[in-house]
């Protein structure tokens, strides 16, 4: 009755990577905090000096953000690839990333004084773009078909990307402040952003968990799903909604982080040797969280105190692993 002995092993490795990334994320940065101190702070002990303040007020919220965003993007990619039965699916293809980028640039240009609005702008336009994709893809003949969703998504993505590029070309002096959002990166701004955005993460994660079994049915084809009483286009719609919530909330907190949602589900699928969503969805959450926390630690440590955008570091960490697995998988 044991299923694929590789799966517990992969879970073990992912959890170890997650623990290491969390400790590194809390201990490293412009100021190094001893690991013992980090653990003492986490256990609620009093610690003398500024270390307590650094860990509790700056690094803990940032680490939690990295974990949430990484897990959200990993899960969004996993459920979209499953629902659309397409290995190239990621939050980009349902338009969220394009919409979020446009929303953020719009805030930077129109309301340069109130940068606090940026997450809300990214969230709103990310969900708006996704809603546009759903409205087109789930109407008319063959509604909710994979091809229709992907084509509508790519068209809407192009539209919003054109808007973003147009705005940047028209206001080149604003480009530097937009770069950090477009490249993707976390900030040490305390709990405020998470305080506003967490409900979107919560709804997205709960919906994704409820979708695991329907997605496993869908993997056996629309007819088997139909035999089991599911409606395939409804499963796809819910998967797209959950992914849109997770990706838009992620963009609101960390800007445009493209690579993670596409690649992490593939990495866990290849490492675990299975495409069963019972494994791929939770493993993508852990893997995405570990990868983003590790990349963020690198991004703010390598040239401290200068912070670099996290996107490139994630690619540097993730692409070699992905290519190595890809070579072995085929």
């Amino acid at each position, binding site marked *: *009755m044991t*299923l*694929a002995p590789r799966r517990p092993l992969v879970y073990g490795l992912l959890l170890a990577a997650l623990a290491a990334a969390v400790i590194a994320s809390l201990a490293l940065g412009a100021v190094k905090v001893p690991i013992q101190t980090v653990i003492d702070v986490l256990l609620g002990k009093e610690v003398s000096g500024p270390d307590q303040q650094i860990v509790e007020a700056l690094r803990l919220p940032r680490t939690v953000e990295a974990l949430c965003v990484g897990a959200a993007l990993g899960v969004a990619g996993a459920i979209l690839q499953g629902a659309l*039965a397409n290995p190239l699916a990621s939050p980009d293809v349902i338009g969220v990333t394009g919409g979020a980028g446009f929303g953020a640039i719009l805030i930077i240009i129109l309301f340069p004084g109130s940068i606090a609005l940026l997450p809300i702008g990214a969230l709103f336009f990310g969900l708006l773009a996704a809603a546009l994709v759903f409205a087109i893809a789930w109407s008319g*003949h063959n509604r909710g078909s994979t091809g229709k969703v992907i084509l509508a998504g790519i068209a809407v993505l192009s539209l919003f990307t054109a808007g973003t590029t147009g705005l940047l070309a028209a206001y080149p002096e604003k480009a530097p402040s937009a770069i950090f959002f477009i490249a993707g990166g976390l900030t040490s701004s305390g709990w405020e952003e998470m305080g506003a955005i967490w409900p979107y993460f919560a709804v997205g994660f709960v919906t994704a*968990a*409820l979708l695991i*079994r329907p997605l*496993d*049915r869908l*993997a*056996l*084809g629309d*007819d*088997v799903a*139909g*035999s*089991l*009483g*599911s*409606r395939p286009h409804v499963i796809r719609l819910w998967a797209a909604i959950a992914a849109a919530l997770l990706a838009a909330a992620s963009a609101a907190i960390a800007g445009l982080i493209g690579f993670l949602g596409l690649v992490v589900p593939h990495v866990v*699928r290849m490492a*675990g*040797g*299975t*495409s*069963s969503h019972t494994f791929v969805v939770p493993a993508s959450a852990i893997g995405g969280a570990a990868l983003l926390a590790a990349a963020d630690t690198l991004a703010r440590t390598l040239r401290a105190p200068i912070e670099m955008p996290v996107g490139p570091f994630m690619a540097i960490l993730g692409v070699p692993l992905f290519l190595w697995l890809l070579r072995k998988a085929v």
Partner: protein
Amino acid sequence: MSAAAGQAAQPLLVEARDLEVEIAGTQILRGADLSLSRGELLAVVGPNGAGKSTLVRAVSGLQPFSAGDVRWSGRVLPGLKGRELAHMRAFVPQRMPVPPGVEVREAVMIGRSSHLRPLRRLQGKDHDAVEAALARAGVDDFAERQLSTLSGGELQRVQIAIGLAQEAPVLIADEPTSQLDLGAAVGVAGLLRRLADDGLAVLLVVHDLALATAVADRVVVVAEGRTVAEGEPGAVLTSDLLASVWHADARLTAEGGHTALHVAWLPEQGVGAT
């Protein structure tokens, strides 16, 4: 040949009347009927494009219909929820996609999921149902193998096992033997017959008239979207009907469990005259 006697005494599980289906502006069904009782194997036969698959899909609730009436144990189809329908019938497609890395038992467990509440795991009776389905379909020997390693015949029997895990009284199979070699087709045909003998109602879409004659209690002949004939295979599939529906000079014979379709493959060359 199976005992068709006494089937009239069984209550009707499914009854479809005057079904009409239009897909993308084309009328596929123009008044098709069928009915199915417990323990009966009903074969739906007909030429390519006649609407056989559309008929069983409409009956299964997988294809909306524009007119007509489908009743499952007396209940009207559009009123049935997906979960209720999943407890009344299992639909086995011609060939399902094979997700990488998924093992046979895992796939059959997915077939059990219509009995589970959201986020609940399989209970003891669910595991029992999965093992029973694996055994009945004869796939328990390779329950640990990945779907991607199976032959066409093995995969078809796994698909039937997935349907059996639903524990529905009706199993609907859409051309399960079309892509199989002779030996695998014999295996699947025998499996479906045994399931009917065990009390399951089986609705089978099939091209092979010799196979249908051998395993079916009754056949429904569909042509141009209508049910044109219905009854015991030997009585219905006459040379006249084969000529009018399939436009072929052919006759069916049945002797001691062997059935054959004798076809004049090259009628214009006047084979009989040489």
